[in-house]
């Protein structure tokens, strides 16, 4: 289980880190360009926002795995150790269900008029599709591509919660065995 957890953590970290880098690179290069050459990229504003949204979705899962989310520690501080473990396992399940429901909500959202153009991206996306001959690249310019982020975020969160739950279950069992031995 720990191995799966590590692997998943690395995938999420890669996604989050890559989005963070792209956001920084685009904004930095675009503003430098603007103040040196006076021109800015047509997609220099919209694209970083969408990349950030994807980054946040990876980050939410990663933060859950790393237990970085902001929460009350009131009840969990008072309860005895054995109880907290069970309580945390329960919160994992609730989070898993919430993630799944969010994914469902996100799918409905993404499928709602996904063909609408993202006005800052569509021109460049068409040019890219034309110049490469890859028609699907035009989807970079449609909102559906970016609206899918929420659905993916729901799935990533649900998976993170599932992995945390299974890891905890293993720990609880191991703990019981320790006491028995």
């Amino acid at each position: 289980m720990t191995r799966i957890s590590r692997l998943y953590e690395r995938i999420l970290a890669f996604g989050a880190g890559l989005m963070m880098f792209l956001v920084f690179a685009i904004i930095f290069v675009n503003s430098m360009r603007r103040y040196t050459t006076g021109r800015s990229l047509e997609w220099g504003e919209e694209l970083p926002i969408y990349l950030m949204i994807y980054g946040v979705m990876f980050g939410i899962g990663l933060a859950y795995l790393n237990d970085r989310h902001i929460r009350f520690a009131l009840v969990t501080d008072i309860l005895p150790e054995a109880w907290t473990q069970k309580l945390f396992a329960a919160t994992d399940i609730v989070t898993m269900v919430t993630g799944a429901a969010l994914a469902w909500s996100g799918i409905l959202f993404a499928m709602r008029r996904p063909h609408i153009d993202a006005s800052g991206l569509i021109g460049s996306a068409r040019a890219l599709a034309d110049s490469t001959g890859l028609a699907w690249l035009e989807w970079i310019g449609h909102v559906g591509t970016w609206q899918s982020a929420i659905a993916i975020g729901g799935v990533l969160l649900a998976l993170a919660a599932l992995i945390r739950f299974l890891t905890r279950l293993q720990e609880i069992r191991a703990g019981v065995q320790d006491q028995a031995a």
Partner: protein
Amino acid sequence: MSYAILLGGLLFGLPIAVSILAALLWFMATGEPPYNIRIVATEMFKGLNSFPLLAIPLFILAGELMNASGITHRIIAFAKILVGRFPAGLAHVNIWASVIFAGLSGSAVADTSAIGRVFIPEMEKNGYDRAFAAALTAASSVIGPIIPPSIPVIIYALIVSGVSVPVLFLAGVVPGLLLALFLSAYVALRVKVKETSAGSKQDGTSTRDALLGGVLPLLMPVFVVGSMLLGVVTPTEAASFAVAYALILGLFVYRKIKPSMLPRLFAHAMRDSAVILAIIAAVAAANWLLTYNRVPNMLTDWVIGNVDSKTMFLLAVIVLFLFVGLFFEGIAAMLVLVPILHPIAVSMGVDPVHFGILVIFNLMIGLITPPLGLCLFVAEGVANVGMSRIVRQIMPFFFVEVLVLLILTFVPATVTWLPHALGF
């Protein structure tokens, strides 16, 4: 049922963002049309779909890079030169290091963990109570988001149109310094500790090196805020420059960051941003529902009908936010309450910049009040002496901070003087 989910979730340790989402998803999924589960994702996306919001991950990244460049030690060395010679010198150094750190980081939590890790052990070695050291670290780190750059300020300017980030940044400078002065004054009056070792010299850095080491990081806020004030760059662009500056310092000047460390630093910056941005997205969805049902309008009408003087209103706001700060994370509270209270404040003739800083200062005090005080959690994580001991030690600092808040409230010039003096 939705309220039960929300309260239960919050109470039993579910992440705040997940609690809000769970309650909303339930409400939207089970509600009659036009309610529909799709609305949650729609409104979350909308809540995140904003260019100024990009400043948050970028400033967090800059802070992450600054930390990794070993800057904490340089700041502490620098602060020691300034205030290390006084009695209870380390306590003063702790406070003023937070002031300098505040110029690099927009978040109090980052400050608590960075400074606490160095100071709590060191102060204990010098005869301070460990819980006192932790409490002081948490209390002084509140300065972080008051002095620019500041994540709460960016979010505040996003919620309220017509108040600009650079002006709010400027307005926070005097209140931040005032808070540091009052904390220092309390330490000077009440703390009698004979420091055992001469902590200020033992690390062997020369005064000259320490000064130089402190100046480079200190230039960052000057340069970031300055470029924003000159109107050269937007806050988001300034944040990207801050990242570039921190990268150059870390990679080439201090050489503490190796290229191989960058992927992890970038990932952690996005992860820690996601914690804040997830709350922003969830609250955006919740706020849409509140607006749709005209809750803000009803509250506004009620307040306007029942509170008639500016002073009454401001005092009521202080009490409300101190209370809310006990249980809520500051940014979440701001996202829910500011859209309602700001128009009322304006209609009562409160300066919007003044009001903004009051709200932020107010909520940042919530960072050190139990049961939900993030800086307390982090300080306890470092000190490991038990929450109740830290809470007992933090009480006097809490009162000092409320005193400063009252001064800021009734002497608006403390907030508005600097932006006005500079022509904003």
